[in-house]
């Protein structure tokens, strides 16, 4: 097949787009290892900046990991049973409820943060604790968990499966544990990876909800972009990439797998 | 338009031989059916004729005198009815049927005239302006056919045109489709795995198995003179009679059959409709199963030969499981077949 002009044009668009996306990311990786970015690579490679990032921001990284784990716990506890209930009652009310909890996907994080601040901002114990940021993260990631699990549950004949278990003598809680959850696992896995990925990268809500003593990884990133030298900012970005990219790959793999199951 | 296929074969990138070298000719206006189980290469052959697949080097497809082997599908002027119908959901019935004329830049007036004509032939006039998404299965199938024939293709290709319909509809649409195809007088090739469909629609049937053409002929020929055990089994469900062959007779578990003097060598086969219950019959067997099917009983009989034999019994009363019965099989009704290409029968 001889490539036609339109084929070459499409190839060019695709390659240029990829270049636009990857070049600055590579720049930032490179800058994180370069002794002096302005003098270029000739200034030599170094791990010094990564060391400084560790000194300056290690607590932010650990806070983000801790928040992601807590966020995962709460989205599981709240989201999985809710998805099950929504799947068993596929009525109008369920649609409305699903739509409502999906609001944080549509309404900008800034608006949600303002809303939370105005209602709970005066409760200083809560306002200044990590739990306040956690609420924001759960709020934002919960719809992803519910939808991922719901999609898998709706794709199977949940009612018949449960009726089968019931005729064999299983009570509701037993059915939930032994039939519902095991069958929903692909969706739960996809949802869990999405929740962790999004929680670690969340900025819009967190920026408004955080306090100077509670900086998450992305808040620290914004901080470094504003006040640190370019090499440190780059090195910190590099740390972020190293954490987020494997999660993203795993998330896409799990989501594809869940989608194949639902088809 | 005569369709000539010479030595067409297809090997896929992963090394599977979907189609072994195959040659056949379809005469002008003839309707040929490619019949076989799934994976026999019939759809691959159809897609090679359409130009959706390219045959391996050495294969050749001719439409009349023109060699179209290297001609791109969109320039080949074939009509194709897809298994899923592949109707364009963003267009009305009329839009779908007119599409082939539109891309050929046929004048608007001519488009309207031809589309109206084809819609009438396919009993679709009343649906012309409906979206295709609201049509029933049978209507969709007619739209797909109308769309394929509107540009007056040189060859019409149909890929399992009835398989997307439910059983009841399939039966009634089969004869309708046969009548419509005859009306168009276009050389047509259609693929099916259903022997009844193949036999009732086609002028000739090509039976395929494992990428090879097994036999090609009129439906009656295939039924009466199958060339191989595979064809005998696939067309008319012939059953093997395992036993010991001696000059002039066949010794079975349940008795002896006298064979005609001119009986061919090979394995004996018989069909259910040729096994009769007869107290004077030469064979003896035991009824294993009895079921009632439209208008007749289906009897499963054991101990006549190694496998269970199925017999159709048109009588008003049937024997019961466990009964011992005597059976008659006319010597003329036996088929003697040798497995030439070493396939499992």
């Amino acid at each position, binding site marked *: 097949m001889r490539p036609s002009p339109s084929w070459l044009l499409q190839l060019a668009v695709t*390659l240029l787009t990829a270049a636009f996306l990857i070049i600055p990311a590579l720049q930032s990786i490179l800058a994180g290892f370069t002794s002096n970015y302005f003098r270029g690579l000739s200034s030599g490679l170094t791990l010094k900046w990564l060391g400084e990032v560790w000194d300056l921001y290690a607590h932010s990284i650990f806070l983000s990991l801790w928040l992601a784990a807590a966020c995962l716990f709460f989205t599981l506890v709240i989201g999985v049973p809710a998805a099950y209930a929504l799947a068993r009652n596929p009525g109008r009310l369920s649609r409305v409820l699903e739509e409502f909890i999906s609001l944080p996907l549509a309404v900008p994080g800034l608006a949600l943060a303002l809303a939370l601040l105005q209602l709970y901002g005066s409760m200083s114990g809560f306002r200044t604790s990590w739990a306040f940021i956690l609420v924001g993260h759960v709020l934002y990631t919960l719809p992803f968990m519910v939808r991922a699990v719901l999609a898998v549950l709706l794709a199977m004949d949940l009612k018949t499966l449960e009726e089968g278990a019931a005729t064999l003598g299983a009570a509701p809680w037993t059915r939930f544990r032994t039939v519902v959850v095991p069958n929903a696992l692909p969706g739960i896995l996809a949802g869990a990876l999405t929740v962790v990925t999004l929680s670690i990268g969340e900025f819009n809500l967190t920026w408004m909800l955080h306090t100077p003593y509670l900086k998450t990884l992305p808040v620290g990133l914004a901080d470094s972009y504003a006040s640190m030298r370019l090499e440190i900012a780059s090195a910190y970005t590099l740390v972020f990439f190293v954490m987020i990219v494997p999660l993203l790959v795993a998330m896409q793999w799990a989501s594809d797998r869940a989608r194949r199951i639902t088809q | 338009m005569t369709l000539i296929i010479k030595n067409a074969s297809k090997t896929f990138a992963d090394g599977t031989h979907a189609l072994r070298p195959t040659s056949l000719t379809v005469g002008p206006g003839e309707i040929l059916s490619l019949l076989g189980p799934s994976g026999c290469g019939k759809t691959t052959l159809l897609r090679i004729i359409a130009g959706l697949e390219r045959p391996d080097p050495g294969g050749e497809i001719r439409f009349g005198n023109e060699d179209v082997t290297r001609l791109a599908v969109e320039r080949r002027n074939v009509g194709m009815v897809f298994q899923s119908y592949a109707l*364009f959901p963003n267009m009305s019935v009329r839009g779908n049927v007119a599409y082939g004329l539109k891309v050929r830049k046929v004048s608007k007036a001519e488009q309207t005239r031809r589309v109206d004509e084809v819609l009438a032939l396919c009993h679709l006039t009343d649906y012309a302006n409906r979206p295709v998404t609201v049509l029933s299965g049978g209507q969709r199938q007619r739209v797909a056919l109308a769309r394929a024939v509107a540009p007056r293709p040189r060859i019409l290709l149909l890929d399992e045109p009835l398989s997307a319909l439910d059983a009841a509809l399939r039966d009634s649409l089969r004869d309708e489709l046969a009548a419509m195809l005859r009306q168009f007088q276009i050389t047509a090739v259609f693929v099916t795995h259903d022997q009844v469909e193949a036999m009732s629609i086609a002028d000739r049937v090509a039976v395929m198995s494992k990428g090879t053409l097994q036999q090609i002929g009129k439906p009656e020929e295939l039924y009466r003179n199958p060339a191989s055990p595979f064809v005998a089994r696939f067309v008319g469900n012939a059953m093997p009679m395992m036993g010991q062959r001696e000059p002039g007779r066949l010794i079975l578990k349940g008795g002896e059959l006298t064979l005609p003097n001119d009986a061919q060598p090979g394995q004996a086969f018989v069909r259910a409709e040729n096994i009769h219950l007869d107290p004077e019959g030469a064979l003896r067997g035991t009824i294993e199963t009895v079921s009632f099917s439209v208008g007749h009983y289906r009897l499963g009989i054991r101990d006549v030969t190694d496998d269970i034999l199925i017999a159709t019994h048109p009588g008003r009363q049937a024997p019961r499981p466990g009964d011992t019965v005597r059976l008659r099989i006319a010597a003329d009704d036996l088929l003697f077949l040798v497995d030439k290409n070493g396939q499992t029968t």
Partner: protein
Amino acid sequence: MAHRIFVSVCLLPLAVFSLAFLALPLVRLVGASVEGPDGWGIYLQILQTRRYLQTLLQTVLVSLAVSAAALAISTTAGLFLARNHFPGRGALLSILTLPLAFPGVVIGFLIILLGGRQGLFNQLLPGHVVFAYSLTGLFLGYLYFSIPRVLLTVMAAAEKLDPALEEAARTLGASSVRIVTDVILPGLAPSLIAAGAIAFATAMGAFGTAFTLATDIDVLPMVIYTEFTLSANIAMASALSVVLGLATWALLLVARSFTGTTVAAGG
């Protein structure tokens, strides 16, 4: 009726959480917006204040431009990748979807690396090419954010298109250009509308990118942020948030009626 009770119990944590942290705060947000001296008149005030209106217009225009550009680029690249298989395709696809998990702040930084004072372009062509802190920078940042999302939506939709449709068009004599305009784009239309709407809504509400670029460009989220933190004009910040939230939510609701699936947004 043990089953009904059990199902209700399953819904309870969700109900409590979303009542406490979603429903009540949103009510409070609307309440706070009308606590100023003008009461509900504050919404009228938005329409009468030149600065807010200009911000609104500017935000809508940037978002529209981003959606259009992201749709054009991602549809081209997405269809190309969905329909062609060649060595390196997998790597290309990974590069194009990698930024899915990058928050707006990081993307802002990446744009600075490209077009900032010390950016790549300014190093290659010194002195003239600083675009990161302008509307162009913002546009590129939002585009960076949207391309992977639209691309994945387009590719998922392209995979679902029945290949027989394209084959049918070919047997009827259609050229490849006609196949794209007559069969593929109409088939993708619902997904394209949905993806465009998501790109638009995310651009409307994006905060991190604008924040990192630290521009003087008035886009709605930045104005809300400054009203809240610098001017302490809580009522106006709340009112603008309500307007922004309602607009993006309504838009996505309409878009979602075209297609059920949407690709995960992200911080």
